[in-house]
């Protein structure tokens, strides 16, 4: 099944592309203590070509639901059961999953039916269950997903509007910056788990997340490039992108982030002359990169030195002090990262060791959603929102955040690292970008975004090392010079997770844990994705995996296949199955229609690397430099005291290419 979203000015419509024989194969679990009813209903469902599982006991049913995460699409439960009240089961299932539950009972008393409704049952069927009712039972599944998709939308829209960004109508970056600032402030205020938790609450309020897959981001970037960053308005971008699944609000949000990222990292290339005539673009980069390099300073790390070494001459931060301050800020930033885990920029190894890749990868759904939410909120146009969670860590660019790019499961490291380095190289070559972040780690540092060639080389080398964990922990996986070794893999501290991934090519999750299910994918902007079950179903339905097939039989086929879509790995969050999946982690964006392009570590399209047009960079850089607000940026990146000014003010030397 595919879920495509039609964007546009209004609420997006989720169109499910259903397989021809839908709802055949719909997996239904029927719970009833009456064997007669069970037999009858089973036959009914069977005749409707549903995939039926019966269970005479509620506790058994609950175990089945728990064990087979994503193994069912719909639950039918009797109300009066000896071992457990049907409403209790409903409540439990509702709290642990997002499965639609239908109550069935011979009791048609108003109070009982009311209880079903208030407890969240999607329907109440009075026995005897008729085939007419069963035939259209699938509607509840569809509706649920539809609702989830819609829920994702408003959040972004709200965010966008909050930022006073006329949703793309306003082409003034300055204004955007303002709004970003405001938005960032708001985000700051909202940062924290509360909001995430709120967001995670019932679907209607849940922030929808548009997962900016690599393809999507590419389309976005090329649209922005064509339009010119200063002229790029969400509406036009949306038109150019011509992607049905996103709305103008999504684009606007993404644009903000992108702009911020570009500004910060001068990604758009050196060629853009900044007002100061310097390669402004690189200035921040340099600063960032150096900053990144220094990252979380692991004691004993020769970061400063390494940095120096790594950085190209001109790029070297003139002022180590500045760098340090930046680093400090980074640290602070990280500390403030919404995800407590990520808050600090810690050496990759450290953070990694501390957490275990698994933990990182396994970001609990909550974490992710929180993170994503944070990202969303902080989507103060920085596009690079620091990931809210670990995931954001890796992804400087919000989009990437969604994919736990940065968090490369250890198991997936080899793939990721290679992928990353490949991407990095590509990106570098294509963009004349010295400071490209080939690895997620770099991306994660986001801030740094750009690295010196040397640095890049080193990084690349590092990256290619197996088990380089690009994503690294949420905590700043800074790429400590010393950490460039195989161990570090994290190229950059995930200071601004968002940033690193901003670079299109790299931003996509290189390897997210395959445990998609357990990971809440984050949209590009870190929005939380629907709960696991739904995500899984979504993944399944939209065929996030290439081999996904929408036939009923495959509805769950990908569930365990580790469709990691945009899983943002919150720092230290646990990715339940991350360990299970080795090898390429797919960063598929289950949410978006495009996600079928599941961004896998191996799939990073080269084109995605060509993200930053010069003009865009220039404009962004200029404006960015003019802009005062670190605050804004900070917010985006979850930087608390990170001063972009410092970074920006850094005047780098000629960019080594």
């Amino acid at each position, binding site marked *: 099944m595919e879920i495509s979203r039609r964007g546009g000015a209004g609420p997006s419509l989720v169109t499910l592309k259903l397989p021809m024989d839908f709802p055949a194969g719909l997996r239904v679990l029927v719970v009833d203590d*009456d*064997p*007669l*009813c069970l*037999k*009858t209903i089973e*036959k*009914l469902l*069977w*005749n409707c070509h549903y995939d039926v599982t019966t269970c005479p006991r509620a506790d058994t049913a609950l175990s089945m639901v728990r064990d087979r995460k994503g193994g069912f699409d719909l639950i039918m439960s*009797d109300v*009066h059961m000896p071992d457990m009240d049907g409403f209790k089961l409903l409540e439990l299932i509702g709290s642990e999953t997002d499965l639609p539950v239908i109550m069935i*009972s*011979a*009791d048609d008393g108003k109070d009982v039916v009311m209880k079903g409704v208030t407890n969240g049952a999607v329907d109440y069927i009075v*026995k*005897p*269950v*008729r*085939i007419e009712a069963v035939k259209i039972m699938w509607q509840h599944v569809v509706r649920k997903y539809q609702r989830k998709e819609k829920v994702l939308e408003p959040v972004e829209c709200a965010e966008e509007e909050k930022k006073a960004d006329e949703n793309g109508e306003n082409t003034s970056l300055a204004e955007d910056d303002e709004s970003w600032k405001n938005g960032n402030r708001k985000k700051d205020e909202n940062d924290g788990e509360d909001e995430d938790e709120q967001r995670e609450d019932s679907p209607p309020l849940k922030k929808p997340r548009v997962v900016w897959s690599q393809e999507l981001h590419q389309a976005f970037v090329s649209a922005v490039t064509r339009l010119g960053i200063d002229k790029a308005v969400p509406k036009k971008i949306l038109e150019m992108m011509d992607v049905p699944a996103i709305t103008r609000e999504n684009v606007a949000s993404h644009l903000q982030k992108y702009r911020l990222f570009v500004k910060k990292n001068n990604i758009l290339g050196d060629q853009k002359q900044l007002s100061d005539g310097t390669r402004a673009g690189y200035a921040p980069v340099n600063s960032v990169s150096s900053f990144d390099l220094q990252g979380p300073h692991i004691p004993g790390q020769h970061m400063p030195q390494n940095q120096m070494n790594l950085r190209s001459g001109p790029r070297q931060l003139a002022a180590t002090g500045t760098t340090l301050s930046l680093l400090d800020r980074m640290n602070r930033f990280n500390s403030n990262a919404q995800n407590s885990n990520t808050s600090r920029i810690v050496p990759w190894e450290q953070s990694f060791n501390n957490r275990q890749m698994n933990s990182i990868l396994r970001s609990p759904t909550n974490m992710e959603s929180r993170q994503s939410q944070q990202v969303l909120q902080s989507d103060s146009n920085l596009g690079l929102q620091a990931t809210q969670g670990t995931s954001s860590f890796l992804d400087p660019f919000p989009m990437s955040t969604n994919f736990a790019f940065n968090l490369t499961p250890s198991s997936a490291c080899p793939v990721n690292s290679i992928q990353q380095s490949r991407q990095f190289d590509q990106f570098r070559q294509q963009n004349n970008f010295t400071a490209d972040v080939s690895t997620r780690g770099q991306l994660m540092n986001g801030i740094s975004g750009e690295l010196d060639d040397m640095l890049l080389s080193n990084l690349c080398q590092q990256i290619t090392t197996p088990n380089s964990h690009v994503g690294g922990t949420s905590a700043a996986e800074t790429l400590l010079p010393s950490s460039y070794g195989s161990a570090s893999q994290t190229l950059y501290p995930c200071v601004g997770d968002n940033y690193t991934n901003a670079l299109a090519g790299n931003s996509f999750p290189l390897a997210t844990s395959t445990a998609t299910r357990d990971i809440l994918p984050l949209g590009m902007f870190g929005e939380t994705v629907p709960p696991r079950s739904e995500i899984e179903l979504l993944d399944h339905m939209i065929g996030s995996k290439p081999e996904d097939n929408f036939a009923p039989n495959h509805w769950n086929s990908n569930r365990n296949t580790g469709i990691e879509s945009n899983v943002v790995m919150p720092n230290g969050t646990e990715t339940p199955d991350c360990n299970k999946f080795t090898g390429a982690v797919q960063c598929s964006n289950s949410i978006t229609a495009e996600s079928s392009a599941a961004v896998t570590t191996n799939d990073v399209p080269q084109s995605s690397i060509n993200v930053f047009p010069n003009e865009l960079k220039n404009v962004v850089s200029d404006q960015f430099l003019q802009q005062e607000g670190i605050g804004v940026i900070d917010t985006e990146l979850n930087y608390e005291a990170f001063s972009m000014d410092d970074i920006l003010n850094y005047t780098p030397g000629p960019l080594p290419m």
Partner: protein
Amino acid sequence: MERSSLQNQAAAMKKSFFDQGYLDEQFYQLEELQDDASPNFVEEVVALFLRDSSRLIGIIEQAMDKHPQDYRKLETYMHQLKGSSSSIGALKVKNECTHFRECCAEDNLEGCLRSFQKLKREHAILKQKLEAYFQLLKQMGSAGKATKSGK
């Protein structure tokens, strides 16, 4: 010939069930569910019902003998019986279950007793009829290709 005669008999019998209110629409639903994959589905379901309902009635009878009556428990049993009887379309039995539950809700012992007696009667009658019906179907089957009893 014989088979068609049997078929007519079966059809007439079934029709009487509906006319007299022993069975309702749900029974047709069961028949609809019967297919090549489950050629004896209806018979199996009915057999299951008769077995379970008989057992449940026995339990209820025991509960009824207890004093004081546990009406809540009786209500629960009746609810179960109502559920199963509705699943096969045993209309009269189902209706009597509803009535019984109403009496339980009122703690109307007398009403419960009367209702229960009626319930047992209805159940016995239905059991008899259904058994005869399926016996007839079996004969039909042996007489020729077994077919779904016509509506």
